């Protein structure tokens, strides 16, 4: 896509707001619509857009495949780990009331933690699937589409 000047410039303008919006949806999810899943797919969409226009090599410099694969597992671990911590604290699995002195605070912390886990896994999985498709050999010229 070296010669698509308009696409390259617009992408350069769009990707930072997309990533910022993903972070907003992630960390503001308990006040406004959204949450981990939405944030994850928005972040992945931003990265995939960057990858399509600027080539996989550039985006793999930021998120190398090995890191993406580990992040996908890390998100599940964060979610499950939150449950295990509440289990160790003497409450039921995923009962976040155990995470802080006051049950209400514990619920709030727990929700933030599991949403983070969801966001990490979802974005990493989407990017990993994109890498898997993009790494397959056949390349089509722009005119052949």
């Amino acid at each position, binding site marked *: 896509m070296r010669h698509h000047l308009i696409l390259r410039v617009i992408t350069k303008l769009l990707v930072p707001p997309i990533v910022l919006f993903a972070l907003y949806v992630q960390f503001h999810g308990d006040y406004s619509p959204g949450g981990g899943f939405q944030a994850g797919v928005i972040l992945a969409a931003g990265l995939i857009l960057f990858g399509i226009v600027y080539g996989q090599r550039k985006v793999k410099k930021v998120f190398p495949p090995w890191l993406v694969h580990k992040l996908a597992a890390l998100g599940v671990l964060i979610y499950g780990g939150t449950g295990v911590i509440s289990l160790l604290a003497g409450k039921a699995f995923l009962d976040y009331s155990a995470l802080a002195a006051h049950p*209400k605070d514990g619920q709030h912390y727990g929700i933030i933690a599991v949403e983070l886990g969801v966001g990490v896994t979802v974005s990493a999985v989407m990017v990993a699937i994109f890498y898997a498709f993009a790494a397959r050999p056949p390349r089509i010229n722009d005119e052949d*589409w």
Partner: protein
Amino acid sequence: MDVLINLVLFIMLVATALAILRMRHLFAVVMLSGVFSLLSALLFVTLDAVDVAFTEAAVGAGISTVLLLGTMALTSREEKMPRNFSLLPLIVVIITGVVLVYGTLDMPNFGSADSPAQTHVAAEYLKKTPKDTGVPNVVTAILASYRGYDTFGEVVVVFTAAIGVLILIGNLARRREPEESD
């Protein structure tokens, strides 16, 4: 005004669907299915389901379009003409459609306060959420806390999907390439 917007969106949705049916060029079909998702996302916004609209716009119009294009690059770019015309699928589709439309006649009106969705557990969640969690967005509280198990299951499903795709078409084996001849 709402009715007008919904009407326009639905007409565009149906037009897109008909166009997809008639197309044989798969690149156009993939692009139109992205348009279809974007129109659905707009419909979700008019229904005040903004978080569903986010998801539909990002996954339906964005990521799945890219993945379909990737699949197309690996396979074929033209849809094959059907070899013989068969009446059975048409009959099945028409009967299913009629049954679904008949089913909607029974449903409560949109936004009616005494629909089962409003009278069953929703009121309970709305009452308890501020006291239990202090999270203003009740949807987040339900998904992450009250239904924490379900969401955990969903995350594991997403993770499993990635494992499946990586095993099928991922280049995980490439690391071992030097010692393997094929």
